[in-house]
Each structure stands twice: as C-alpha cells, then as structure tokens.
C-alpha cells in the first residue's frame, strides 16, 4: 500500500465511523510518513508497520465534545470579525500616518536641496541671504533623515503589529475549535543589536544637527537682518 492509498483508506474508514476532524488525524499520519521516509523506509514498509487502516480507524472513538466546540467556534468567529474591523481601522490609520511621514520627509529633503543649490522655483521659498539658506538647508536635510528613520521604524513596527495580530487571530479561532495553537508573536519588532545601535546613532546625530543648525540659523538671521523678527525685514509674509 502506498502513502496515498493508506491515507485515502483511513479517511474513508474514519468517515464510516463518524469521526470528526479527520484532517487533523490524517495530518498526523502524513507526518509519520514524512519522518519515516526521511529515515529511509519505503512507503509500503511504513504503511505495513502502521497497521490496518480499518483497524486504526475503529480505535478512534467518536469525539462527543466536538459539538461543544462547534458552538463556541461560531461565537468566536463572530467576535473576531468585529475585532478584525476594529483592528483594521487602526492599521489603516497607521498606514496613512506612515504615508504622511513619508511625504513630510520628501518635502523637507526637496526644500533642503533647493536651498543648498540656490534654486527657487516660482519664488516659493522665502528669500534670504545664501549663508542663512545654507544653514537652514543643513537643518532641513537633518530633519529629513530624522523623519525618514522615524517613518521606516514606524513601518517596521506596523508590520510586526499586523503579524502579531494575525497570529492572535489564527490562535483564537484554532483554540475555540480545540485545535493546537502556535506561540504568540511579540508586538515590537525584533531588531538586531547592530541595527538598533545604528538606528540610535542616526537618530541622535540627525536630531543634534537639526536642533543646532536651527538655533544657529535663527541667530545668524537676526544678526544679518538686524532685527529679532528677521522675517519682517525680508518681507516673508508680505503679499
């Protein structure tokens, strides 16, 4: 008897004996075949050693507690639908937030590069001496790096959160049907120590550069304009 013949016969015999959850039982025998095959036995040998499918099927007593599980499972599935909708709304907000952070990052980077290059399309960027523009450009580029790092981490975090939620979802439903469950996944992304260190270094240095150049930019601007509210001197908000 080959593996598929054995499994088919067992399946039919189990059905004859009114045994529920045949898939669960069959997968156990399938695994047995897989292990034995790995040890170098032929399918015929393994099937012969397993015993007569009819005899085996008769040893499975009908599971009377299945009905209890069934009722519980329906309630659980309905509950999970609501949980999924609720969680789905959160994930959507998370994705939108990530997109906004991405756009902010790109905008900061583009303005920074324009300032650096002295390129001012349609006079969209307020006028200022090039020295100030240079300092603000550094500040904006540092901010872009900071925001990109935050955006990236947020995306990784959201992905892990979704994975964790998916595992939770599967486990709850499997548990309500009396099936085996997998261990739950952590909510926070598991980054290696090296990645964490690098991330921290990038965030701290870009934050420092951003803050310092912003303050320095303000000081130099006030000195060059001769006024604490330098934007009025340069007519930033004049129509």
């Amino acid at each position, binding site marked *: 008897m080959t593996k598929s013949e054995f499994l088919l016969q067992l399946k039919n015999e189990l059905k004859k004996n009114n045994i529920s959850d045949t898939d669960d*039982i069959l997968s*156990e*025998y399938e*695994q*047995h075949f897989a*292990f*034995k095959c790995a040890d170098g036995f032929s399918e015929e040998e*393994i099937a012969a*050693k*397993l*015993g*007569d499918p009819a*005899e*085996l099927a008769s*040893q*499975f*007593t009908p*599971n009377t*507690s299945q009905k209890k599980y069934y009722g519980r499972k329906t309630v659980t599935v309905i509950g999970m639908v609501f949980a999924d909708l609720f969680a789905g709304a959160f994930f959507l907000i998370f994705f939108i937030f990530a997109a906004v952070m991405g756009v902010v990052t790109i905008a900061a980077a583009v303005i920074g590069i324009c300032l650096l290059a002295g390129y001012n399309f349609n006079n969209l960027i307020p006028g200022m001496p090039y020295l100030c523009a240079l300092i603000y450009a550094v500040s904006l580029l540092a901010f872009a790096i900071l925001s990109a790092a935050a955006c990236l981490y947020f995306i990784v975090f959201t992905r892990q959160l979704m994975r964790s939620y998916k595992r939770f979802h599967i486990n709850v439903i499997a548990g309500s049907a009396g*099936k*085996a*469950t*997998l*261990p739950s996944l952590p909510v926070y992304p598991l980054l290696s120590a090296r990645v964490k260190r690098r991330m921290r270094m990038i965030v701290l240095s870009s934050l420092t550069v951003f803050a310092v150049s912003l303050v320095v930019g303000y000081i130099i601007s006030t000195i060059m304009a001769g006024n604490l509210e330098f934007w009025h001197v340069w007519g930033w908000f004049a129509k």
Partner: protein
Amino acid sequence: MNTQYKKGVLELCVMSILKRRDCYGYEISENLSKHIDIADGTVYPILRKLKSDGLVTTYLSEDSGGPPRKYYSLTALGLETYEADKKEYLSFAKTVETLLEDEDHDKK
C-alpha cells in the same frame, strides 16, 4: 493480547513518556514501538483520546525550522491521573505475578 486491555496500558506508557518531556506524535510512536510490539499507528488514537479526556494538550512549535510540529504535553490533570493509574497498575501487576508464580509452584 486483548486490544482493549492493551490500550489501557499503552495510555499509561504514553503518559510516562510525556511526563519526561513534551514530544511530537512520531517521537512517541518510535519510543513505544522500540519497547512494545504494536502497530506504529496505534499511538495516534491513544493521543487523541488522552486529549479529548483533557489529560494532554497540544501546541505547535516552529523551533525545528521546518513546518510547525504538533507537540503533546501532559496537563496537571494528566499528571495526577498518571500517578494514580501507575500505582494501581503496579500493584495489580504484582498481584498477578504472585498469583501466576504460586500456580507454578503448586504444579511442581
């Protein structure tokens, strides 16, 4: 040997294996068939019965790298039942042994 009788004893053997550590089905089957002459497939109905009686639970583990394996683990109730059944079985086996030996002596 009577299958029904054998089944009860095999349940005890399976629980004794699981008391040592959690195993997946195939491990238990291999372990048992090393010592006792039974069809390899007999273990799975026993595991299922133990599970539906609440004596063992199952969980999946991905540690081995391949597809998740279903592990069986003895519950608190299982452990309690095991200890009680073991005591009962050992005293029963002893009684049977003495009885059979006495009969041997009488013959001589």
